[in-house]
């Protein structure tokens, strides 16, 4: 479902949700965003509940950093007292730390929805087709993205070559020292690959100032507009509710 939405429409909507999450300093709103993102993944994308929970773990760990910072170092910190005294209903009931914590999860989940439902190649094609991203930059991004999975196999290839020179089969998982020793060869591999890609692109006529066709750029559909309007309306409604209850 979500994967069929135009990547740029999705990008704009996700950016707006993130903006909402950042500028509206309210715990309930953050929880609402987290719930929406999780629901979108579970209901619309049919991802397993476990996967969605697992996704939240790193975001939560990340957010936990803010929580500890603000709990331990806030000047007027009577955070623990507040927590004990008040049940978390109104927005003021939460310390800034909790909101920051939830916000990290909320932003993380929105990004996760975007990343999990978007083909990076399609995104870059759409950027070139609709937002006039220059092809030289577009294809550089493309090459960079495609390099990511290849780094793993290149690392494995280097480990094979080294193991063979030593005359013993490579260990299944590289230790920290071995990993560190792979950084420079992998960077060298990446730069070399970039050099060759530049030649390959140039030899087949990628030129900055000639118009080019883009095959397979995702088309805009009516559903994209419906999706954008609905999700923006939802965002507006959520803000309205928060501000309403906050002032009332």
């Amino acid at each position, binding site marked *: 479902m979500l994967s069929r939405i135009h990547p740029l429409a999705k990008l704009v909507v*996700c*950016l707006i949700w*993130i903006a909402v999450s*950042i500028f509206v300093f309210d715990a309930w709103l953050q929880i609402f965003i987290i719930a929406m993102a999780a629901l979108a993944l579970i209901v619309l994308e049919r991802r397993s509940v476990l996967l969605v929970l697992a*996704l939240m773990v*790193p*975001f939560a*760990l*990340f957010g936990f*950093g*803010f929580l*500890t*910072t*603000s709990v*331990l*170092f*806030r*000047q*007027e910190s009577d955070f623990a007292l507040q927590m004990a005294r008040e049940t978390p209903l109104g927005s003021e009931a939460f310390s*800034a730390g909790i909101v*920051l914590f939830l916000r*990290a999860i909320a*932003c*993380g*989940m*929105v*990004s*996760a929805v*975007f*990343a*999990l439902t978007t083909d*990076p190649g399609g995104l870059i094609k759409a950027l070139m087709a609709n937002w006039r991203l220059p092809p*030289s*930059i577009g*294809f*550089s*991004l493309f*090459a*960079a*993205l495609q*390099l*990511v999975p290849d*780094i793993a196999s290149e690392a494995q290839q280097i480990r094979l070559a080294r193991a063979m020179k030593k005359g013993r089969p490579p260990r299944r998982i590289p230790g920290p020292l071995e990993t560190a020793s792979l*950084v*420079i*060869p*992998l*960077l*060298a591999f*990446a*730069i*070399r690959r*970039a*050099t060759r*890609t*530049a*030649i390959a*692109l*140039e030899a087949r006529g*990628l030129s900055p100032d000639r118009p080019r066709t883009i095959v397979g750029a995702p088309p805009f559909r009516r559903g994209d507009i419906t999706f954008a309007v609905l999700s923006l309306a939802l965002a507006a409604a959520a803000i309205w509710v928060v501000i309403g209850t906050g002032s009332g």
Partner: protein
Amino acid sequence: MDIQYKWTLREILICAVLGAVFGVLYLAWVQVWLIAQAIFGAVTMDVVMGFWFIVSIIAAAIIRKPGAALFSEVLAAAIQVMLGSPAGLLLLVSGLVQGAGAEAVFAARKWRDYRLPVLMAAGVGAAVFSFIYTWIRFDYGALAPGLLIAMFVLRCLSGALLGGLLGHWVTEALYKTGVLSGLPIDRARRGAHA
């Protein structure tokens, strides 16, 4: 030697792949940080922060053109977002701010000087910019002043060492592998020897 402003396709591509590789490494570094944070507490972020500036320094030292620091850092952030970084899309803003910090230092030297002190200064530049940004984002004004100063100093040190110095070492090691031949760093060095 006058600096060239126009980028070649090869340079754009190299900047992009550097961004990609460091995007992956940055993400691995997040794990290091999270573990350290759990053990040593909150200021850990400032201690490890410098590593997240390194790509801007390496890219600038190799390509030596305006924008290299900024572009590579933003790209590394973008790659992390796509790989599902915990920080989410906001990371793009962090990347922009950090890259701008390093870029500002290179700009101050008119993009001509890439010796070690300048690289370390660029690390500090990124640290200062990122400190201002995190101040706004995480409401640092509410923190105790002593702590704030400690955080600031740690972050600048980290930027100079984990960003500038380490970046310098990596660049040197890469130069030795021969893959940088024909790039501005190579031309500058060979030009200096001739």
